[in-house]
């Protein structure tokens, strides 16, 4: 979902209304921003509980920042993404690298098998993402899982658009290489 301002979706105006005491504005901002931050943090960290903590902390910083928010600055969502990215970086630095393991698939019925396969693919992707350098991981998640445009990602990562393109391309190449060995095990053979 793009972060740019759309009619009825003026995040800065919602923030101003929140400062003026409008609870509905806080709810609207939460519904608009927090789910995206949660998805991003969960994919960055590979842990939903930690992602929830990061989301709550990033939103708390937005509420505290709200009275001093300057109109004309970045969209609040962009700012919260930046905060969340930094919080994820802090947590990743404190954590040991996750092991890249494709989960074993138990013997199940065909429909259960499909479900398990889907879960296993997601886990394999998360494990592969965790092996990417952090900036590449951010760029790939924002581009290919969050569906953002390169200028939006550039604003979040505070980079040029060309740098984002380069990071995304390298990230995808590395991901393909990491996942290459898992394709057959996860039902993606050469006939796909």
């Amino acid at each position: 979902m793009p972060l740019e301002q759309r009619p009825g979706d003026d995040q800065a105006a919602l923030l101003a209304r929140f400062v003026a005491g409008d609870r509905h504005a806080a709810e609207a901002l939460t519904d608009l921003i927090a789910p995206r931050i949660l998805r991003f943090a969960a994919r960055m960290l590979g842990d939903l509980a930690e992602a929830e903590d990061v989301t709550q902390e990033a939103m708390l910083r937005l509420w505290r920042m709200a009275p001093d928010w300057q109109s004309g600055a970045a969209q609040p969502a962009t700012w919260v993404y930046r905060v969340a990215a930094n919080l994820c970086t802090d947590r990743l630095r404190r954590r040991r690298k996750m092991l890249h393991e494709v989960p074993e698939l138990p013997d199940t019925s065909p429909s259960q098998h499909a479900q398990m396969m889907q879960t296993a693919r997601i886990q394999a992707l998360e494990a592969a993402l965790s092996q990417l350098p952090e900036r590449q991981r951010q760029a790939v998640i924002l581009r290919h899982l969050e569906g953002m445009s390169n200028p939006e990602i550039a604003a979040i990562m505070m980079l040029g658009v060309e740098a984002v393109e380069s990071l995304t391309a390298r990230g995808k190449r590395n991901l393909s290489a990491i996942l290459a060995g898992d394709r057959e095990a996860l039902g993606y053979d050469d006939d796909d």
Partner: protein
Amino acid sequence: MSAPDHNAEGRNQQDADHLMLFLDAARDSPPEMSTSLRERILTDAMASRTAPARPTVNALGWRNWFSGWAAPGFAGGVTVAVLGFWIGVTMPMPVMALDAPEWLQGALGYLDLMAVQLIGIDDPLLMEF
């Protein structure tokens, strides 16, 4: 273009296609935000609005003044001034001291005692300077 180049290109395309399948799988099952997380975020929002206002620059100035070196320095200055005034005005007035209250005479007597120990004379006025 040679055959190996064709093969490599085809392989790259196949890799990209497979990666997209992994990414599609992840996109189809995004982590959902729980109601409890939403409530926690909104509780934080309301709490941050009712938090005490940050102190103004003026209030901050006074607080810094009292918590830094200025207050002790000022207190020291006042003490020295009062003591200086007391020594300068009260001590060289032995006649007045005769009419002074008992506690003051006691204090002066104590000072005389110290003066004897320090400079060897009973009455500082006898120093003739």
